[in-house]
């Protein structure tokens, strides 16, 4: 079992984290082959913090997010939200908890029903749960649309196809927040947007987080974006966690070799930037047949025989800094 609580940079650890994930495994079976998209992941998020979850395609970060939101069924492991153990609930109990955990998706267009009007889309959660009278719902919806930067009088009766990608994403955010959730899972929410629109949405999320006292799990593959919004960052590779640390620490002194490789490959808009040539060679191995022991060993410059024999567990090398490596760059 791995360590669970992480300290927010601003204060001592609270009593219990808002979200606690223990040894989560999500596997998919297609015909004869089984793929473990998430192969034993453990972490926790404190109330009010933003945890960034970063990794490349196929690492299982989106699947983790979906398992937390309960749209993907975990194969094994425990997910606790507050005092409640989500994985032990039945379908109707899960349904009631859905209002507390919400998700925003990557593709802004596909996230909205093209046949419905914006106001109806944002009001839908209230309608499903029969919250408030019609007039009250309308007021709530209009206020929420305003707070995400969409004028309800101008745009309320329009359909999604009349909006740009950034605006669609704002509508999705409004829809997610109308039920006043405690935890917001953002799955690659800005990846499909232009740089300037991306900046607007990231600022918007920061503002809304303060106003609505949100806790955020921010899933993305862009390191700079993740660093910008997160308090702590977790790095995933091929279904397993490599490293978790406060943002600034992770980026300045990464302990895991994969993290270091990711950072060196990042494209900074600075011609004077030092191009550390630890460009990772080769392709990620197939998730159907992952390498034994440490999954990163096939591309790791530091790999030894121990790495093939023993799976490295997440262990704490500094307060709040955990790494899953036998020979980390920092600490031993």
């Amino acid at each position, binding site marked *: 079992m791995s360590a669970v609580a992480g300290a927010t940079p601003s204060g001592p650890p609270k009593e219990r984290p808002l979200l606690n994930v223990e040894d989560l495994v999500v596997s998919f079976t297609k015909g004869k082959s089984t793929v473990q998209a998430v192969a034993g992941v453990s972490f926790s998020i404190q109330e009010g913090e933003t945890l960034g979850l970063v990794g490349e395609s196929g690492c299982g970060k989106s699947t983790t997010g979906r398992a937390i939101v309960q749209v993907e069924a975990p194969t094994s492991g425990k997910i606790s939200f507050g005092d409640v153990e989500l994985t032990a609930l039945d379908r109707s109990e899960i349904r009631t908890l859905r209002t507390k955990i919400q998700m925003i998706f990557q593709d802004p267009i596909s996230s909205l029903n093209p046949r419905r009007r914006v106001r109806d889309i944002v009001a839908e959660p209230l309608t499903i749960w029969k919250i408030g009278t019609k007039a009250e719902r309308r007021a709530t919806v209009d206020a929420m649309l305003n707070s995400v930067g969409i004028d309800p009088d101008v745009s309320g009766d329009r359909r999604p196809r009349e909006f740009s990608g950034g605006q669609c994403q704002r509508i999705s955010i409004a829809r997610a927040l109308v*039920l006043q959730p405690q935890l917001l899972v953002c799955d690659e929410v800005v990846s499909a947007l232009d740089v300037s629109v991306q900046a607007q949405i990231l600022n918007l999320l920061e503002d809304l987080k303060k106003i609505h006292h949100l806790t955020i799990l921010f899933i993305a593959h862009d390191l700079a974006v993740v660093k910008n919004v997160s308090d702590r960052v977790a790095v995933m590779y091929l279904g397993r966690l490599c490293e978790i640390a406060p943002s600034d620490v992770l980026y300045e002194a990464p302990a895991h070799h994969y993290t270091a490789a990711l950072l060196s490959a990042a494209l900074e808009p600075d011609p004077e930037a030092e191009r550390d040539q630890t460009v990772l060679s080769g392709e990620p191995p197939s998730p159907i047949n992952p390498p034994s022991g440490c999954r990163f060993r096939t591309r790791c410059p530091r790999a030894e025989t121990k790495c093939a024999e023993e799976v490295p567990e997440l262990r704490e090398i500094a307060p709040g800094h955990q790494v899953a490596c036998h020979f980390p760059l920092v600490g031993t």
Partner: protein
Amino acid sequence: MASTGVSSSEMVLLMEDPSDNSNKKKLGVFFWICVGWVGFVILLAVFANLLPLPNPTFQNYLAPQNAGPGWGHLLGTDDLNRDILSRLIYGARVSLVVGFAGALIGMIVGGIPAMISAYRRGRIDTWLNTASYIVLAFPIIIFLIVIITFWGRDLWKITLLIGISASPLVFRVIRASTLSYAQRDFVLAAKSLGASDRRILAREILPNIMPTVISFGLISVATIIVIEGTLAFLGLSVEPPTPSWGNMLYEGSTLLTGGKGQTNPWLVIFPAAAMFSLLICLNLAADKLRGYFDVTEVKL
């Protein structure tokens, strides 16, 4: 070398304009003409008994036999001295009832399992899908012939049977349509908001597949009318003397080549023309509707 041309949809992406919202498509005059004709036929059929028509089954020995179109009988008479126009209008009832009601039955029997199957996936989907392939491979005419022969030729029975036999194809079409929407993020979003499956199917998916449903429904009506005509030609539609266009074609076919010593091509021309015009209008209307509902997506 990769593509050397740019398609028009690619060009839309090239223009990268996010707020193209003024392109309201019109259905066109042609569409309304088609709808008008279908509506007119329906009205005639419904209010047939209010029209000054002679009884379609009345064999009027005072009238000329096998007369061509003339003043007394606008479309002529058949070899049993019955007024063709009247038979045509009353006959429309059969075609329309079998067509629309049959299509509706097919849509419900085929469509609802299709939506559930495509949404749920898993074993139900595999089974129903395979079943639909198997059933579709079987020629329905034979199935209909056998059952109608043993079960009887009442209008409602025929309607029900044809409707059910249309359901495998409806299943495939609606399943494909539902699949393309069931994977989208907004369905996932609705699920994560706590919507029940029933609500998702009805409020998220159904409005999106509606254009396909309506278009395909109209085409089904047309196809079913043809099937009824075929059955009638095999002598298996509603029993005479009830007129139906198929019956009229069947009975009239014997007089095309002087079978009973007389020729009267009008007996075949009019019901065929009626069927033809209705089918063309239904198909054209369906096609126009499909084009009209083709929602252009937001361009990122």
